[in-house]
């Protein structure tokens, strides 16, 4: 990587120029290897997050309290899978196969959003996840609609549209609880208490401590800093919680007139590091679930390949027979 020759330095300069001018980079364009690698890491992490994110809410599909909620939830989890698909496709334009990406997920070398390593314990969690987790995701993804890599930016446009729909549904579902019985209110508050801090962690470490941030900002595969995105999320979410009559579990939370933003307490970074590095409450179950499903599907994928080969052979045989006939004629 370090022995650039003149040509590639020049290519890189031109590349950066295009990025600076907000031109979209497309799959067939030249790009620095590190840009490609970084994008693959980021997009696949995003894709894996969507797919692993199907689990915490998915475990409530069979127990949803009404037909309406069951349908809404199943459709939502399905959409997350759909986002995973868009994003895998975007990553594939960078010359990596989905199978490789999944291998990296299973081997632990690729990550996913650490929030999905917390368990979803009550029905209220489903609503809170929609409200907070999808809410946090959107704050980030809206900026990524302007990311420098074309396929990624376009995937984000589609994803954002659906996510805001989910976020609203989640909020409405929490509202039903907040306006419900005492038990329901308590359930909603309990879920908010458990998911609030992990939601803030979704934006990653403070700007100074983020490994990839500076270069990613320069390449515009990241458009805004972790801390500023987190602040935006807090600012938009606090009034929503107030409206619901729910209490955000942060004694330091207060409006700062001067800054025009909410001040809020410090994240427990030790917990963040612990969960990221594989020791969260559900890391093993999440991965095991995905690996199991994938292994259970081995024979199906193999059968599809075998069937397709047979079909090709048959077409081949028919054509050959056709050719023989022609020659014989």
């Amino acid at each position, binding site marked *: 990587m370090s022995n650039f020759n003149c040509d590639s330095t020049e290519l890189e300069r031109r590349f950066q120029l295009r990025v600076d001018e907000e031109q979209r980079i497309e799959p067939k364009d030249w790009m620095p290897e590190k840009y490609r690698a970084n994008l693959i890491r980021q997009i696949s992490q995003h894709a894996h997050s969507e797919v692993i994110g*199907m689990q915490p809410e*998915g475990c409530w599909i069979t127990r949803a309290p009404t*037909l309406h909620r069951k349908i809404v939830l199943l459709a939502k989890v*399905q959409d997350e899978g759909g986002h995973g698909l868009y994003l895998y496709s975007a990553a594939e334009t960078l010359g990596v196969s989905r199978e490789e990406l999944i291998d990296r997920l299973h081997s632990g070398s690729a990550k996913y959003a650490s929030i999905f390593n917390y368990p979803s314990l009550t029905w209220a969690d489903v609503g809170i996840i929609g409200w907070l987790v999808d809410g946090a995701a959107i704050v980030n993804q809206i900026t990524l609609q302007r990311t420098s890599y074309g396929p990624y930016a376009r995937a984000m446009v589609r994803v954002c549209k659906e996510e805001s729909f989910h976020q609203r549904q989640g909020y409405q579902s929490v509202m039903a609880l907040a306006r*419900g019985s005492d038990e329901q209110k308590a359930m909603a508050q309990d879920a908010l208490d458990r998911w609030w801090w992990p939601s803030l962690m979704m934006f990653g470490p403070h700007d100074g401590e983020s490994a990839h941030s500076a270069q990613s900002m320069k390449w515009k595969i990241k458009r805004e800093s972790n801390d500023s995105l987190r602040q935006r999320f807090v600012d938009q979410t606090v009034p929503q919680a107030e409206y619901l009559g729910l209490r955000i579990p942060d004694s330091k939370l207060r409006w700062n007139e001067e800054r025009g933003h909410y001040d809020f307490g410090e994240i427990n970074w030790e917990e963040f590091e612990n969960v990221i590095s594989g020791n969260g409450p559900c890391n093993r179950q999440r991965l095991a679930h995905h690996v199991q499903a994938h292994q*259970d*599907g081995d*024979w199906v994928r193999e059968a599809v390949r075998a069937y397709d080969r047979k079909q090709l052979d048959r077409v081949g045989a028919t054509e050959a027979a056709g050719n023989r006939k022609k020659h014989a004629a």
Partner: protein
Amino acid sequence: MTKISGNEHLFRYVLALADDALVLGQNLSEWCSRGPYLEEDLALANVALDYLGRARMFFEYAAQIEDKGRTEDDLAFLRDSREYRNYLLHELPRGDFAYTMARQLMVDVFSLEYLKALCKSTDETLSAIAQRTVKESEYHLRRSRTWVVRLGDGTEESHTRMQKAFDDLWGYSHELFEGDDSERALVAEGISVDSSTIRNEWDRVVNEVLSEATLKRPDEGWAIRGGRNGIHTESFGPMLAEMQYMQRAYPGLEW
């Protein structure tokens, strides 16, 4: 035997159709995040959503016919197992992907023909529901048909699994064509579909698919009945316990 009024027959008829859709939708929804391809997760979720959507329409209508203040959710979630009257084929656990696809083929061929006939029902609501859903079943059938053929004619393993799935499921197909008292009582007025009339077309299509899939049609000797009488399989109770949990633990709330 208590005399059953026409309205009671209609209620029971619609409720049974609702149960079929709910129970199958519930089973299929378990595939979400467990399919062999991500694409398949989405496709199976689609099928599940179609069935849950049907369930909702049928339950709404049943609640309206009954007119005793019970809601669609009361009917869906607050009966005990003996009161559910879905066909057994719909309640069997999802099994492996071959099992799910074999069942889908059997159900899809049946449903498509049934809904086509129900489109002509003299009951406007039933006819409207059928018209809204018949296209879905066409799509479902295209999928399950393709999968049965691919897996039947795929590898040795996939062939064995498909054949075993059909062998294990076949005994549950017979009751599909037998209907129940309520269905029969409503045939004359043109409200219900006489299931027995579907048998021939079902046989034709299923035989065609099996043959294309290089699979053997299982023997007919073994037949399990009981769904329409609320005689279920033992896996039904635990499934119900899970499905009903919230409504049972928190009765009478809005969600």
